């Protein structure tokens, strides 16, 4: 068997990733610290001094801070239900997984149908006699409603990915551990917190990392529901690249997103670290 075979098989994918992943990243990093060919921090200064930057930065963190914990709780609930179920398991799993295939833009539009002025929420409130005429929910006066709508849309759209990872992780935990805990007198809740959760750590880790990074990349949902009234890092990146035609500042934004993504990844890796010997 030729020794070179595995390398030949890996070569195309590796080359591809080098050209379209490593090289552009070096490029972004370079673009962010140069202006007109000179090393400078001007891009970062320009980014940070723009009035929208702090808002975009905190909005992004706030969104992630609200959305991810809700999703974690919901994903755990859904995964527990699916794992427990014997009948109708695959149907329920399919339904829960549907949002996985739905684009964030489509998700934004779906929730726009609910929150817009002539939308379903207004119609329902009107029908119930709570309001007399439709309210303009998604306006700059109602930033918190925009936030709520974005949170709902994000929770709706991206919980599925965590759920599927957690279901897969729960499937790896042999039933005997739970049964053993039951024999030793653990209640249902204790079994969940003392047996399932600790053994689920590797999956939780993956799910959280994936989800947190995606949360920092939130873009189309925000644009669909809030337009430019709710700036986040990704939408600002887009603005600088397109509307302002300033690649350097856009690159600086990209580095900020990259920076917080890496930072949070490291934190999650650290918090949910499971030593190799202690894995299933």
């Amino acid at each position, binding site marked *: 068997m030729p020794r070179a075979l595995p390398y030949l*098989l890996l070569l*195309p994918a590796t080359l591809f990733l080098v050209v*379209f992943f490593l090289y552009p990243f070096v490029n*972004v990093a370079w673009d962010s610290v140069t202006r007109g060919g000179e090393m400078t921090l001007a891009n970062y200064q320009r980014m940070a001094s723009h009035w929208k930057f702090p808002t975009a930065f905190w909005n992004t963190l706030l969104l992630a801070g609200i959305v991810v914990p809700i999703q974690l709780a919901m994903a755990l609930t859904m995964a527990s*239900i699916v794992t427990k179920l014997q009948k109708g398991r695959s149907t329920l799993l399919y339904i829960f997984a549907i949002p996985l*295939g*739905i684009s964030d833009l489509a998700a934004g539009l779906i929730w726009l149908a609910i929150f817009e002025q002539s939308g379903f929420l*207004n119609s329902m409130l009107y029908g119930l006699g709570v309001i007399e005429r439709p309210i303009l929910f998604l306006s700059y006066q109602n930033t918190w409603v925009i936030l709520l709508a974005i949170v709902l849309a994000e929770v709706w759209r991206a919980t599925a990915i965590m759920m599927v990872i957690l279901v897969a992780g729960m499937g790896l935990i042999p039933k005997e551990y739970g049964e053993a805990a039951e024999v030793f007198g653990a209640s249902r809740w204790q079994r969940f917190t003392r047996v399932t959760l600790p053994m689920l750590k590797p999956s939780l880790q993956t799910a959280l990392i994936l989800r947190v990074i995606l949360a920092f990349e939130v873009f189309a949902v925000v644009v669909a529901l809030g337009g430019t009234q709710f700036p986040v890092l990704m939408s600002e990146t887009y603005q600088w690249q397109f509307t302002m035609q300033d690649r350097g500042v856009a690159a600086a934004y990209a580095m900020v997103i990259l920076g917080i993504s890496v930072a949070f990844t490291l934190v999650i890796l650290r918090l949910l670290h499971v030593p190799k010997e202690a894995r299933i």
Partner: protein
Amino acid sequence: MTEAGTQDAPPAPDRVRRSGRWVFVTGVGLLVAWVLVPIWLLLANALSAPAEVTAFPRSIIPSFDTASLEFFFGFRGVLDALWNSIQVASVTMIVAIGLGAPAGYALSRFDFPGKEAFRFLVIMTRAFPLPLLALPLAVMFIRTGLDDTILGLALVHATLALPFAVLITFSLFSGIPVELEEAAWTLGCTRLQAVIKVVLPLAAPGIAASAVFAFVISWNEVFAAAVLTIENRTLTAFLLQSLDVSPLHLKFAGGAALVIPALLFIFAVRKYLFAMWGIANR
């Protein structure tokens, strides 16, 4: 058990179990509604006449008027965008599987120096906000003439899909016992023949599912599509750009056009959801 025995038995545990069951069923019902109702509402809008969409109050029952959809598909640029989306997603699918499957096979069948480094490279891609790649690539593409082309965007989308393709096919091939291949060798197959005659038929459904998955990744991607295309907009880029200017019924019909294929895709690959994400644990 006698009748008296039944009456004497303490009823409490049974009642607790029954009420627990009721809570469980209600919870499941609510979660199902949570997922399905918003989709229903979007479809209800898409299947209503334009005037009804902006009318107030909205009925949650659609009138099954296709005027919105007709308007949408008749709108200038929509059909082109749809066609672009399909082309980009198809090329993405081919590139991701074509490059990813051999790599997945190599990872599952060989031990060699550098294997861990490659796995690290693949896993690392998931820790980075990949759509941002579109920024430097936009410049690179202008230099190479790939700007605003189907291929250029598909290459970026393939960067998103390739790591998944590698990991999914890795898990698929790992699930096929090496002995089957070895048996084929002892029965007269070359390495390639064994892959074609034994491994591929067994992995085919899973590979198809991961191809569909790559298609969906591209189909749904917004940021890179919006950054990299100007004339040749994909459907997502088209919808994003026209958000400010287009009437509501156009947005909703567009949303429905994005969602319906996604529903079918997920249905098609539902058996392989775990193969795709379960591997995330390794």
